[in-house]
């Protein structure tokens, strides 16, 4: 009988019990999952995006089917800071799970103000979502290194909490945006967010999504995410949280090998609600079957040709 493998992983000094984290927007604030498994069994919980003011989100339809994936245009619906602090935060803190709070804004000041406020809470990690369109130029903050650097540096200045910067794949060079985040003081980069996409109903001659476009997620984007994780791993000295189409334990291992220190599970958890917690035990089994004593030994262990 082999010893229990060590599943712990460290992301820039923060030790997680295991590398499996439900992705932001695919786990709400944890309540729905908590009815079916204990959140503290997870490596962490990336809670749904939070903005200063409440956001109603986009009109429906907000989801469209795609080949090996889906598009969503939820529009970052969330209760806003005040209700979140009152109704969601206390409950989340009781769950004993590492809490990664994702934040969004329309301008740099929004991110800064949210980070300033979060800094005074017991939230474990601030994850800034840079896929949001910038009110100034309409492009996402994450599209260019300069935008990433500006937002990251501004947030860094107001918080000493671990800061994860979530990058969009819609950029000329993910290595360049990741490097910008690193320069500006990010503790880790989370990648990738969804890829902007469109599905059309040819009968009605309209996009299926009321928002016209939405973000593509699921297995369809997995090879793109994996390449980006490895590209950043090879060129930027910053811990990586890998995200994109992860469904099975082999997918988890592939992201770790490519260089991720932890992973987030998005769409797969919408279809298989207990998948995140199942992957924790699958990963333990995989390590045992493969004689891997410590999950952390897998990180970046990919051998390139």
């Amino acid at each position: 009988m082999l010893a229990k493998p060590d599943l712990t992983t460290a992301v820039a000094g923060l030790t997680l019990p295991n590398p499996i984290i439900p992705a932001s927007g695919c786990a709400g604030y944890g309540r729905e999952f908590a009815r079916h498994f204990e959140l503290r069994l997870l490596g962490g919980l990336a809670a749904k995006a939070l903005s200063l003011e409440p956001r109603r989100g986009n009109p429906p339809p907000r989801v469209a089917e795609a080949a090996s994936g889906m598009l969503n245009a939820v529009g970052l619906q969330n209760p806003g800071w005040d209700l979140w602090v009152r109704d969601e935060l206390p409950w989340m803190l009781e769950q004993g799970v590492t809490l990664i709070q994702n934040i969004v804004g329309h301008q740099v000041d929004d991110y800064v103000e949210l980070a300033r406020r979060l800094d005074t809470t017991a939230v474990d990690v601030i994850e800034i979502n840079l896929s949001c369109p910038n009110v100034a130029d309409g492009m996402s903050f994450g599209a260019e290194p300069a935008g990433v650097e500006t937002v990251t540096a501004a947030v860094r200045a107001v918080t000493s909490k671990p800061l994860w910067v979530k990058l969009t794949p819609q950029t000329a060079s993910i290595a360049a945006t990741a490097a910008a985040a690193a320069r500006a003081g990010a503790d880790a980069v989370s990648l990738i967010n969804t890829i902007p996409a469109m599905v059309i109903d040819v009968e009605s001659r309209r996009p299926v999504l009321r928002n016209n476009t939405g973000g593509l997620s699921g297995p369809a984007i997995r090879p793109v995410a994996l390449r980006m994780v490895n590209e950043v791993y090879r060129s930027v000295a910053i811990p990586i949280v890998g995200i994109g189409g992860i469904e099975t334990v082999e997918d988890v291992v592939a992201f770790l090998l490519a260089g991720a220190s932890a992973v987030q599970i998005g769409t797969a958890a919408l279809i298989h609600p207990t998948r995140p917690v199942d992957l924790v035990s699958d990963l333990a089994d995989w390590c045992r079957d493969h004689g891997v004593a410590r999950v952390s030994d897998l990180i970046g262990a990919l051998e390139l040709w």
Partner: protein
Amino acid sequence: MDTGRLEQTALVLTNVRLSPVAVLLELRLPEMAAAARPGQFVMLANRRSYLRRPLAICGVNHDRRSLSVAMEAKGAGTRDLMELAHGDRITVLGPLGRGWRFSDFDAVIAVGGGTGVYALPTLLEAAQAARQNTICVLGFRERSRLVLEDRFRAAADTLLLVSELGGLDVTGNVLDGLRALDPRLLQRHAPERTLVACCGPAPMMRAVADWAAQQGFACQVSLEERMACGFGVCRTCACRVRTDDGWTYERVCHEGPVFDAADVIWEEDGDACEA
């Protein structure tokens, strides 16, 4: 923490054709069958689509530890589900959502049209078991589309079948059906003790809700919206619901699919209140 796992593997027991366009699948799902309440739904995986498909729980058989769903072919997902045969296995999430709130009423008037009729048999059966007065008005495009007549007849004290193209009790739409009901039937109970439970196309539900309001009846509607998860985490299944200070998007899969009609902001009204 819920005892049953949300995701279960179902064995397909039977696939029965209900009409030229509809089939009923009976699925062995002991825990879900035990837990299911009228108006709840399930999400069914299939071999052709990435996302699951939401379907109303149309029947529960405790002896056979099964529940059944009925559907018509719409796209790839329903077409694939309709091909399932005895012995096949699929994974299912459920039971999901908040169903009909019917216990506080003396009479239930179930009104259905199209595939919406499948959300009603379990309601009528439960209301009947609770000794409530049960009335049912169902609309079908044509006579050949009539489904589950025996079950509706058994569970409804009064059953009125409506068809657009004729050949059933009333020719017209369900509103014509409701208007054709004997007024004395509708007046047997205090109006606020009568529930109109409606499931069907949105314009129909809206018209029925208006009629119910005119009569002073309570009215609940079961909404449909595109869903990714079905259990409340993804917030894709948004519908507009009135709040004290305006409106908000609620989740069809979680706060619904059954809503008080008075709370629902229909699409046409909705456009007016867009931000």
